[in-house]
């Protein structure tokens, strides 16, 4: 026992202290209930009353089981009683029901009070409403579950996309094979016949076989374009990075369009600096881009000239194909590089082609770390510049 001053005032002091303690218990935020050994309530504080919705008068003499929500089973309560009747403190969470019928979560500590013989005489229960915390926890759990579900869905979607990609590239491979196999023999046999390897042919046969060869080469070019654009879109296009000399590549591309330029009476000029240093890139794709730009220039020019100007610095080579052809309207310049887009040139005759050339050029140039730019004036010719880094950058 503590020393509370003079013995004379002791009884009065005890009384005052008990009143103060009760006032303090009544004022705390935790709900407090006193019961006898059977659980019959004989005192509750204000917090208990506001937590449960029952007034003090209503519950004195009652058993706390009036708060039971039924959410917890018999075994749960049996364990609780076993603990406290054995004189041990019980701590746990209860789901209870307020007077108005609503349920709430409480965290509760029940302390048994024992007499000198060790027999339980009273219980003190201190509790606090943790419904809000439960709600937050629940929400947290739900959002964790949602995140988990989203992650699982993402994995499934990713796997599905990957298998779609696989199907796409398998389809492209099959198409490529199925289309090239017959073309391989058409082009091959035509070449054999034209070269006289299978015996002499007369001039008319030769002329017709040349037409077969030109048509099949054209068909091959179309198939290649369609496959290229599909491969680019499926992320399946291979771009090499190997050192090579640019001059022969340029010469080959120019030589391919020369016959057509001559037929149309166009001058075809190349100006390149002497001693062009080798570049590290994809020779075949560089040639493809140049050839596309050159054949467009020849195709869309009826009078004048087509030129290829090559300029190089330490970092990059730029190749500009300039023509004196129909030109491109300013509003059409933006659509130029979209696949399958052929502009209305205002000319009466139709130009052959699929409108894939420039779309492929731009994507190829980008895959090699460079770009293709267009400048043009309607009726005043066009200039397409292909910029190629000397070393291919990261794709």
């Amino acid at each position: 026992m503590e020393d509370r001053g003079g013995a004379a005032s002791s009884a009065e002091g005890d009384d005052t202290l008990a009143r103060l303690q009760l006032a303090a218990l009544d004022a705390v935020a935790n709900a407090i209930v006193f019961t006898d050994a059977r659980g019959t309530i004989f005192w509750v504080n204000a917090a208990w009353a506001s937590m449960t919705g029952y007034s003090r008068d209503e519950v004195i003499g009652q058993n706390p089981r009036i708060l039971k929500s039924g959410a917890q089973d018999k075994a749960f309560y049996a364990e609780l009683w076993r603990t406290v009747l054995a004189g041990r403190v019980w701590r746990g969470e209860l789901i209870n029901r307020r007077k108005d019928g609503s349920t709430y979560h409480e965290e509760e500590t029940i302390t048994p009070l024992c007499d000198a013989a060790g027999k339980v005489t009273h219980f003190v229960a201190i509790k606090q409403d943790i419904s809000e915390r439960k709600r937050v926890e629940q929400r947290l759990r739900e959002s964790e579950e949602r995140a988990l579900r989203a992650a699982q869905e993402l994995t499934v979607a990713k796997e599905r996309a990957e298998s779609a990609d696989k199907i796409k590239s398998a389809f492209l491979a099959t198409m490529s094979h199925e289309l090239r196999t017959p073309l391989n023999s058409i082009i091959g046999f035509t070449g054999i016949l034209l070269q006289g390897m299978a015996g002499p042919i007369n001039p008319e046969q030769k002329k017709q076989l040349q037409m077969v060869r030109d048509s099949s080469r054209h068909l091959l070019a179309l198939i290649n374009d369609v496959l290229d654009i599909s491969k680019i879109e499926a992320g399946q296009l291979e771009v090499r990075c190997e050192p090579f000399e640019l001059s022969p590549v340029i010469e080959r591309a120019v030589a391919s369009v020369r016959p057509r330029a001559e037929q149309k009476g166009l001058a075809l000029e190349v100006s390149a600096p002497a001693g062009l240093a080798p570049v590290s890139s994809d020779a075949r794709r560089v040639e493809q881009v140049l050839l596309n730009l050159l054949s467009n220039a020849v195709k869309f020019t009826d009078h004048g000239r087509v030129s290829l100007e090559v300029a190089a610095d330490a970092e990059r080579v730029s190749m500009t194909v300039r023509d004196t052809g129909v030109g491109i309207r300013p509003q059409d310049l933006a659509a130029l590089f979209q696949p399958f887009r052929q502009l209305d040139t205002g000319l009466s005759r139709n130009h052959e082609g699929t409108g894939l050339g420039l779309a492929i050029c731009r994507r190829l140039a980008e895959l090699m770390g460079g770009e293709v730019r267009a400048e043009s004036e309607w009726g005043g010719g066009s200039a397409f510049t292909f910029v190629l880094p000397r070393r291919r950058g990261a794709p």
Partner: protein
Amino acid sequence: MTRHVLLIEDNEQNRYLTTFLLQQRGHQVTSAVSGPDGIELARRVPFDLVLLDIQLPGMDGYAVAAALKADARTRAIPIVAVTSYAMVGDREKVLGAGAQGYLEKPIDPETFGSEIERYFAPRGAP
């Protein structure tokens, strides 16, 4: 100098074409229409080169190349693969499977013969 080439190709027209081009240059050609047939032939006949189509039905060219390279009887024969895929990594895959050369279809009849001849081992070499 006459060499003996094993052609493994399933397409009849392409088989005729390739055979014609190689015979024009004086070589002898034996052809097989499937991978297993080709492997079987290669084990029995001392070929100078195998011209292998990659897109074969059933056992594909990669598997054929691997099988030829795994067998002591056929390991030394140079393989030139012919493919019409030209997809990402094809070349690496073909060379990784043990082929020495790689050609894409369509072939150019003017240069085909001389391209193939580059892969013959020099005569007298083991």
